[in-house]
């Protein structure tokens, strides 16, 4: 089993005819993802590698039965694309786009709040259920199908590093999900943690956080209360100077809030196995999960 996506997921790609959209759609198809449609306004009737392109998400979903979307449209149009997908009944929306204005994301988040929609991202690498379905820009081959570990992270390449170390240790993954580095995003740690807790095939979880905000602290409290499976945690950005935004829009330490040290303490005091040196994460996981 897995969370959110599996071999039955039918994906459509918003922005499929752009350079990035095209390249990563091809990568997803190669990995085995069932990509059923693309959407680029004004290009209906065309095909991209045999995948039909539509003007609107609504029509694409109606005609192909797509239930998931991957978004590659530029930042000024990303919020619109997410809301269009939500309105068309798409259940799992993954927005890869980096640089969406925070005000746009606040509106989107309020808009989808009471809808039956799972938004992942924006500014994220996406989600993969190894061996079944890849929605996003992560390199597929380094993943090890079959579980039993779930991975959730705020980062992109840092997630790849974590997955790589797990695979090197012979530890497979159920689902790996990057929730994105923006201050306002669709899915948070707690959403994913509760899914992993309920997924019978996931027996342990790796949670990768970073400085800024208090999502890790809240997740740590949630883990103590609701998660019975072992969790290994890592926090990036301990050496980041306060007040500076470290690449990700959300990665900023303001005052005493959002510091890496505070997050590590919150994790430790809530029973999470904290890895303090990224180079040793795989080894620690092998110890904790085996």
């Amino acid at each position, binding site marked *: 089993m897995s969370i959110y996506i599996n071999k039955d997921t039918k994906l459509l790609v918003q922005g499929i005819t752009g350079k990035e959209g095209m390249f990563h759609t091809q990568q997803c198809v190669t990995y085995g993802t069932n990509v059923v449609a693309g959407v680029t306004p004004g290009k209906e009737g065309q095909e991209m590698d045999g995948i039909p392109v539509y003007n609107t998400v609504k029509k694409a979903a109606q005609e192909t039965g797509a239930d998931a979307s991957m978004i590659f449209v530029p930042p000024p149009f990303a919020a619109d694309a997410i809301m269009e997908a939500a309105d068309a009944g798409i259940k799992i929306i993954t927005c890869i786009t980096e640089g969406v204005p925070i005000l746009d994301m606040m509106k989107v988040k*309020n808009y989808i709040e009471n809808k039956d929609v799972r938004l992942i991202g924006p500014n994220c690498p996406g989600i993969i259920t190894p061996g079944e379905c890849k929605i996003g820009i992560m390199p597929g081959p380094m993943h090890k199908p079959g579980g039993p570990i779930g991975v959730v*992270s705020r980062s992109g390449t840092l997630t*790849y*590093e974590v997955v790589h170390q797990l695979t090197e240790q012979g530890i497979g993954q159920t689902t790996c999900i990057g929730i994105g580095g923006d201050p306002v995003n669709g899915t948070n740690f707690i959403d994913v943690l509760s899914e992993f807790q309920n997924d019978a095939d996931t027996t342990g979880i790796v949670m990768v956080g970073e400085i800024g905000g208090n999502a890790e602290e809240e997740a740590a409290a949630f883990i103590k209360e609701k998660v019975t499976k072992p969790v290994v945690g890592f926090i990036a*950005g301990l050496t980041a100077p306060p*007040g500076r935004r470290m690449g990700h829009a959300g990665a900023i330490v303001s005052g005493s809030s959002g510091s890496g040290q505070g997050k590590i303490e919150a994790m430790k005091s809530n029973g999470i196995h904290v890895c303090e040196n990224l180079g040793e994460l795989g080894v620690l996981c092998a110890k904790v999960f085996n």
Partner: protein
Amino acid sequence: MKIHEYQGKELFRKHNIPVPDGSVAFSVDEAKGIAKKLGGFPVVVKAQIHAGGRGKGGGVKLANSMEEVKKYADEILGMNLITHQTGPEGRIVKKLLVEQGIDIKKELYLSIIPDRETAKIVIIASEAGGMDIEAVADETPEKIIKAYINPMLGIQAYHSREIAFGLNLPPALMKQFFGMLKNLYNLFVDYDCSLVEINPLVITGDDKIIAADAKVDIDGNGLFRHKDIISYRDLDEEDPLEVEASKFNLNYINLDGNIGNIVNGAGLAMATMDIIKAAGAEPANFMDVGGGATAEMVENAFRIIIQDEKVKGILINIFGGILRCDVFAKGVVQAAEKTGINIPVVVRMEGTNVDEGRKILSESGLNLDTAVDLKDAADKVAKLVA
């Protein structure tokens, strides 16, 4: 993007938020000219830098005569202003705001920020104005009032009432305050702000509400909608190497240590800095070349890092995904050949096309130390500084 107080007050005027009369000055003569036009003392002379705590650092003075305007303008222009926000190195003052002094009866605090947890816009206010608001929040949290606004709906009358009654405003001031708050909210939304802060918001002796200060930060991701204020960016307030890096879409922050690093992805870049620190060294920078970096971007990243004289060694940590290792390796070789790197470089690569990438590096004849994994890379970095 941070902007200056005088620029923030320009935006305030456009949105009908009352501010004291005044203008920006780049010289003592200009400061005197503005003071003369204001036609009355006292006049406030305020240093314009992108940092708070200017008053305590000696960057804000009250002048009661033209002689004092001249004296203070002369003192503050060119001074190295050190505040709790500039760090010990301080910031050279290059411009002043010269404005009319106001008769202060009461000082309030008012700000608007996005709340990341609730995805609401939050108005924060306090009767304890003119003070360090973080300290107020720590010591007397009951003096902080907040109203959360759904950005889909915008500010409603009851939000304004919550804030106004919370501030114990006299009834006669309510209408004035409601208008000002609505305008401030609209400014926040219209300009994609990530912060609007007035500290202090002043009630004057003749019962006028005036913004004595204006701190406005704009969400960099929203700037494409605001071509009119891109000129507000002040390169004098930024690190020259960071400005250079931003021209090539490189995410770079200059830090105090001596181990430079080049990484793809912000999270991995932060983790790499942490690894350098854990190995007993200090990172000289944060450098994220991004997921889709080209050989040219890598070359520029290299060039920028070795311009930093503190750097005694470089750790490269690349996890190839979209950015393939062979492309990255070509960039490194190109950069090394053009710039003639004469400090030790440790390279750790993993991911897409890693074997081709390693081959390119080993056949280049360059003096590069290759690490097999992160732990190995950290050990090699430690040796660099030992």
